[in-house]
């Protein structure tokens, strides 16, 4: 009984929230350039609804953090942006995601081109079983860049941007599996950067790393946002607070609160957000 009532209350709150979405976004948010916009996204695995009526604006050259408890749909939301969910045949999506003035779920969308523009880094570092150099060159080779000098040049730049060049420049031909976890994750970031994406999605990139490696990646992301838009899913609220400009709190597939990070953490408007941030959740 109680659960049901809670659910109903949540629903009502959410309805109100959606209505007030624009109102609730603070002034600052209205002035930002919108990079990606979710318009009423609903998402199902089999018959289980994972995302419900998600409306979300992601701003250019900002870091947007998605936070929320396990299973709240934040990874799914992230994977909607580069259509990685397409790979799961039992999934179904309704709604629009607008990127470059175009709904990426139109039938004529070039998914390959989309994934080239929207790079992704996964939770567990997943370097390919090849050399460090070939890992970074992989994306270039699949996009038909044949000029070896150009490839060398881009690999070097990408590794530099990912803060890894100094550590690996003398052993580019060594297997990527020889690197430590943190180095592997930075390699994955370099690999994503090599194809020069416009947006970088990160799915809990630091959850398998120690604090030092985490700090390195956080600094790296802050630097990268000058050139690209970053969306990061994180379990770690301190991390969201440290690096993000905007934070979005998701619960049971719905957006509970979305605002400027400092405001969200200092002065959450929704009680549910407050509970979660203060660790009183569940």
């Amino acid at each position, binding site marked *: 009984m109680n659960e049901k009532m809670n659910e109903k209350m949540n629903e009502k709150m959410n309805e109100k929230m959606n209505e007030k979405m624009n109102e609730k976004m603070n002034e600052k948010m209205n002035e930002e350039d919108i990079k990606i916009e979710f318009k009423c996204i609903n998402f199902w695995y089999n018959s289980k609804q994972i995302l419900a009526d998600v409306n979300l604006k992601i701003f250019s050259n900002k870091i947007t953090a998605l936070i929320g408890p396990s299973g709240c749909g934040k990874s799914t939301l992230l994977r909607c942006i580069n259509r*990685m969910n397409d790979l799961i045949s039992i999934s179904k999506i309704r709604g629009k995601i607008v990127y470059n003035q175009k709904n990426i779920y139109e039938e004529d969308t070039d998914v390959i081109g989309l994934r080239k523009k929207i790079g992704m880094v996964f939770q567990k570092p*997943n370097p*390919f*079983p090849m050399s460090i150099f070939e890992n970074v060159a*992989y994306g270039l080779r699949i996009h038909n860049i044949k000029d070896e000098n150009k490839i060398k040049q881009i690999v070097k730049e990408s590794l530099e941007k990912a803060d890894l060049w100094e550590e690996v420049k003398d052993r580019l031909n060594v297997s990527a599996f020889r690197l430590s976890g943190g180095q592997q994750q930075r390699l994955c970031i370099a690999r994503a950067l090599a194809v020069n994406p416009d947006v970088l999605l990160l799915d809990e990139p630091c959850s398998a790393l120690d604090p030092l490696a985490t700090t390195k990646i956080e600094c790296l992301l802050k630097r990268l946002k000058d050139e690209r838009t970053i969306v990061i899913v994180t379990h770690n609220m301190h991390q969201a607070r440290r690096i993000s400009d905007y934070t979005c709190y998701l619960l049971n597939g719905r957006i509970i609160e979305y605002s400027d990070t400092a405001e969200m953490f200092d002065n959450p408007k929704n009680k549910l957000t407050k509970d979660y941030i203060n660790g009183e959740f569940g």
Partner: protein
Amino acid sequence: MVNELSKQNIYFIFFRTAAFLSVGVLLFILLYVFKEGVGVINLKFLVGMWSQGDITRGGIFPAIIGTIFLAIGVSVISIPLGVSTAVYLSEYAKENLFTRTIKLAIRNLAGVPSIVYGIFGLAFFVLLLNLGGSLIAASLTLGCMTLPWIITASEEALKSVPYSFREGSYALGATKWQTVKRNVLPNSFSGILTGSILGISRAVGETSPIILVGATFFMGYLPSSPFDKFMALPYHLFILATQHSSPYAREYALGTALVLIVLVFIFNSGVFVLRYKLRKKKEW
């Protein structure tokens, strides 16, 4: 009450005995064949043409060549087809009732007795397609028999490539084929190779299907086209052991068996070396 430590010891002894027993039996067979068969092995036996009347005057060269040709024929037919099928089933086909049924059917076909493939080959390749009893009919028949083994082994090898490799590749904007070609196949190649070769080795050791589709016991010449009949080591061995009247037949049968074992052994160790070289390159 048996305490945990002695339970542990009992199981340890049990497993060790089982391991020694099975290895022992295999070793015994090998040694027996070697001891009994090595006497007849000489250059004439290996490279001489078969002499039907007085078997000591000839050798089993046509049977060796027949078996090698057969191995090549079966490989050419079943490896490309089998591996491609496995790639389709594991990478492209949607996971639904239909594909699941197909996969189950393939696994069942892997268990169908070889003589059934033989009778199919006789009816379809030899008679219906009018290929006659020939090397090509036998290769096709054994190829059909090997297909399910190769498909199953390759599918397992493909599945063992972590999903995260594929995911990483797709996320960079790779197409499915690029992902398969650059990531999945290179990383499952050694498994596919092993499965395929084991299948081929088993196939060339088969006797019953090839009797029906073109193997012959006596041939004074080597097959010169795929439509020729051929001699093969397993069938040769079978006739020598059961039907030949020569007093030397038993010894010659064991010699033939030894040659067959060595041939398969050479074949497998070649692949083993290749696989070792490939594996040195990969780490995960």
